[in-house]
């Protein structure tokens, strides 16, 4: 199959032939079509969708349906809450992981190897392992139903620490740090004026990935939050379970809650793609 994709070899990288373009185009279509069709579904009634030939183009009634969806589910509150939660988690994760990553990469201290090994080993332990005590803890602290309950456990990740460590270890030469020490700078000064500027690209990547993950997180928020004070993902549930006589309203609400992050994603797409690929090689 792939042997038939004609093309010329240029410096080891093969130029794609028409077969490659067709296949990649097809895959792209499959990736994007459900999102497009959501717009179509959001603007047509059940009767129209059930007709012999389903519609393929959206109509303006989508505006009306979004309004109805907003009456049905607290989507606006969800969007604001998601912004708060994801923003706080991103700031926390980037700060704490840069600090710890710097320490693991450039400071010698007793137990650093063991602590880093613990960190890496636990990257794979699933979140579900801990949700029950975590929920009980939040209930005892009186935080169940509050946004802090979502923010606190996600304030840093083992992956983030490892990612920052790998980057800082490679991006900041030891000589530079030593020179700074010779000039009388302390570790904190070194961190602020040498490490952070050098690690900025990795921090940006970590920030984008963390924000996206936090924004799309579903499992823990649905457990600890209620539909009275939801993130946007949790508020989708009141669309799905609520009394929505028309699928168009469910679709309009879903679209309304999804479009903001998709727009941001489309704008930052190149950087996010680069970040994921970079993380793959480092991880």
């Amino acid at each position, binding site marked *: 199959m792939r042997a038939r994709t004609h093309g010329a070899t240029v410096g080891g990288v093969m130029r794609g032939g028409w077969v490659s373009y067709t296949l990649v185009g097809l895959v792209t279509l499959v990736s994007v079509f459900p999102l497009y*069709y959501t717009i179509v579904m959001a603007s047509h009634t059940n009767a129209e969708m*059930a007709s012999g030939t389903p519609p393929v183009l959206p109509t303006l009634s989508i505006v009306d349906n979004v309004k109805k969806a907003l009456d049905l589910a607290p989507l606006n509150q969800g969007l604001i809450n998601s912004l708060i939660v994801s923003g706080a988690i991103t700031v926390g994760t980037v700060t704490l992981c840069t600090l710890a990553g710097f320490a693991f990469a450039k400071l010698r201290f007793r137990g650093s190897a063991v602590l880093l090994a613990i960190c890496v080993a636990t990257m794979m332990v699933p979140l579900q392992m801990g949700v029950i005590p975590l929920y009980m803890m939040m209930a005892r602290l009186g935080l169940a139903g509050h946004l802090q309950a979502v923010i606190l456990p996600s304030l840093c990740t083992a992956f983030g620490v490892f990612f920052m460590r790998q980057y800082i270890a490679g991006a900041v030469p030891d000589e530079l740090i030593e020179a700074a020490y010779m000039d009388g700078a302390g570790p904190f000064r070194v961190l602020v004026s040498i490490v952070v500027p050098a690690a900025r690209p990795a921090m940006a990547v970590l920030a984008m990935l963390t924000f996206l993950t936090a924004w*799309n997180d579903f499992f823990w928020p649905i457990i600890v939050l209620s539909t009275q004070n939801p993130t946007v993902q949790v508020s989708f549930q009141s669309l*799905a379970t609520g009394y929505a006589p028309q699928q168009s309203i469910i679709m309009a609400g879903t679209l309304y809650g999804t479009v903001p992050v998709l727009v941001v994603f489309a704008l930052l797409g190149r950087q996010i793609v680069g970040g994921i690929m970079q993380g793959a090689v480092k991880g």
Partner: protein
Amino acid sequence: MTAVQQPAVAVSRPGPVSGSRSRLPGRRIAYAYILPFFLVFAAFSIYPWLATAWESLHDTRLSTYDQSNWIGLENYRNLLTNHFFWNAFRNTITIGIISTVPQLCMALGIAHLLNYRLRGRTFFRVALLMPYATSLAAATVIFAELFDPKLGLVNWSLHTLHVPAVDWQGSTWPSQIAVSTVVTWRWTGYNALIYLAGMQAISGDLYEAAAMDGASRWSQFRHVTLPGLRPTILFTIVVSTIGAAQLFGEPLLYHNGLPDGGTQNQYQTLGLLMYQQGWTNDRLGLASATAWTMFLIIVLAVGVNLLLARRRELRDHGRRRHASTVAGVPEVTTR
């Protein structure tokens, strides 16, 4: 945050930097830097993991979580003799296979295509990642409509192809395929990019050498790309296995947010069962036992994967050495 501020000045200052210059100062300050991370980690990850084991030996209820009775292994006995558990166990495995195996194979093929020099490749990459940027909640709600037996586009397409309508909600296999489709749709592009990153790390010289020896595209893919990609493939398999074992949101929202996984529990997964036990049936102890069992299953599944990969690597290594002497295909050492 507070831990970071002033000790920087107070603690460090390691005196005259005599002796080994390679040793950077900041022994004690380092602990201040990793402390915030480990505090959060200990409080919200390590403690809950251990406490889950403790709760699984108790009859813990949501309503009275302050006093819970020690019941030993009763929860585990209860679980292993419960047909809901075994049903969820089977479903987790079948959905796991349907959602990961085709996904990773397709991702590999797509990565191979993206590795060609293509015009507008940034556009393609971003477009392929759109499903990943779509939340699982939104994606599931969307696919639930697409798979709707009466209104959905899927059954309409089948109808135009003269295939009888499929009950994507009520029947076991179709509903599991539908749930798996959401997973596959969201993650294929992401994994393709991971593979692409791995492919780009493979030296172009290897391909040129192989082409020089007259290796076809297909045999280049098999003998250069695949071996070079092996660590990456293993990584994605492990991550996908862990993800599949925990599957929760997709089957929950596919049945309108009900934790039963369909009226006949036809697509109830272990994650969903745990949620139902804990938060619907008020049996947190039992749910903890399920969580620990899930963890053991994950450890087992990942272990089996690693073992198979190791064996395969050893076997392939021998075979390739043999093949390279026969067919003249250059040998590629796996890392």
